């Protein structure tokens, strides 16, 4: 049987089967907690009461099953602690992910918008905007996402510059946003920065760990570990079995393709 000529639709059907099956009947494969998830969890857990965390939503719908898992788990963790959350986005398409996240996590009844957390929507300017926020928060975050002037938001009274932030959590699927924070926040002011990024981007940002970056949460895997750390297993943990089976299928097909390649190569050599 020549796998090279196999109708790709059969492969696609197989992929659907190995992805859907574990979602319907979870295998419950053990998930070990990595050093990055543990580091970020411990850091957030030990933030002094009243600390301000900048939670940046720079991920789109495509990242829901990847970096989105961590974004939701980290936001949930932050909301469970006596800390303040300032959120914004550097991507237009990321704005809807704030609403998506907040509608899916449990907001504790004692947490109020404007007092404990606030969202400033899309801010244009990328790295320039980050530099501007660092110097003067109120000059850049003029109004929140719902149109309320920054002066009327109670929690923003004491948040004026980069020095008022205890931590930045950047969730993104591209490197542009991370680079800006490293250059405009970490290098000049030393603000701790944690990255929650799509799995494919992890090798690009690991070299910044541990000097410039506090932790690199790796896509669905890192997010699932975080879900387990906050003791709220959710969509991430549920999806990891499907990740396992689909990844294994890809590896099997790489192996089959290569075995076939070497058999053909040997045949050609013998024919000569």
């Amino acid at each position, binding site marked *: 049987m020549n796998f*090279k000529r196999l109708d*790709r639709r059969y*492969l*696609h059907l197989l*992929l659907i089967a190995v992805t859907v099956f574990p979602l319907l009947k979870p295998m419950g*494969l*053990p*998930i*070990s907690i990595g050093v990055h998830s543990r580091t970020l969890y411990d850091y957030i857990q030990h933030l002094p009461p009243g600390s301000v965390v900048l939670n940046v939503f720079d991920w*789109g*719908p*495509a*990242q*829901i099953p990847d970096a989105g898992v961590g974004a939701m788990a980290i936001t949930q963790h932050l909301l469970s602690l006596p800390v303040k959350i300032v959120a914004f986005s550097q991507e*237009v*398409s990321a*704005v*809807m992910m704030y*609403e*998506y996240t907040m509608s899916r996590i449990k907001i504790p009844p004692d947490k109020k918008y404007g007092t404990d957390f606030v969202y400033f*929507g*899309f*801010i*244009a*300017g*990328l790295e*320039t*905007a980050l*530099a*501007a926020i660092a*110097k*003067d928060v109120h*000059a*850049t975050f003029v109004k929140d*996402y*719902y*149109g309320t002037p920054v002066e009327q938001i109670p929690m923003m009274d004491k948040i004026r510059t980069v020095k008022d932030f205890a931590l930045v959590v950047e969730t993104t699927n591209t490197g542009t946003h991370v680079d800006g924070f490293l250059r405009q926040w970490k290098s*000049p002011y030393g603000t701790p920065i944690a990255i929650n990024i799509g799995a494919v981007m*992890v*090798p*690009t940002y*690991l*070299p910044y760990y541990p000097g410039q970056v506090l932790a690199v949460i*790796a896509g669905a*895997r890192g997010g699932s570990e975080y879900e387990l750390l906050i003791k709220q297993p959710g969509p991430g943990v549920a999806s*990891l*079995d499907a*990740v*396992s089976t*689909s*990844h*294994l299928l*890809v*590896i099997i*097909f*790489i192996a*089959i*393709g*290569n075995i076939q*390649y070497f058999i053909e190569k040997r045949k050609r050599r013998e024919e000569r």
Partner: protein
Amino acid sequence: MSKVIRTDIPLLIIFFSGIVLIASYFFPITQLSLAEKELSRWGIILNAWAMGLGATSLYRWHVGEIIKKTPGRWMYSVWLIIVMSVFIVVGFVWTPSHRVFVWLGDAFYLPIEAAMNALLAFFILTASHRALRARGWEAAILLLAACILTMTNAPIGEAIWGGIPVIGKWILDIPNTAASRGMIICVAVGTIALSIRTLLGYERTQVGVQ
């Protein structure tokens, strides 16, 4: 347009803006800091304008496609203009936080982008048995590293053999980090050189001079 307006004045603006931004980083002088703040605000406003300019260009190009009735393409241009106009009008009339705009995003944009991304899985699977070949030693090492890292990210890798995540972590922490750090430093040095050339006006492509 004279050369002075076209190139010399923009180059002077670039020079002074760059000098102010660099100086304010190194010297804590109030006036410099204020100038830097103001320049950053201009940067944000210009960036927002650039997005508007992009939308206008998109409209112009697609209206041209419709007028020319480009075979096989014009109907997509009509669709793009309809969708873009709906989003813009709704966003302007209400606000992006209004439930109608949120619904548009949730009902159309969100599933479309998620589905587009999900399609990648099928391409990867097809490519995995048709294209990913160990044609030489270098390709074999690359392929092996890719397989180990793929299994490191999935819990089944650890379940099959406890050594997989250990090797995967070593690949990421040692060869990957060492090589990437070298590249990052090289890029940083190159960026400094390019910035100096731009500030001094030797690099002129940004003002349309080749």
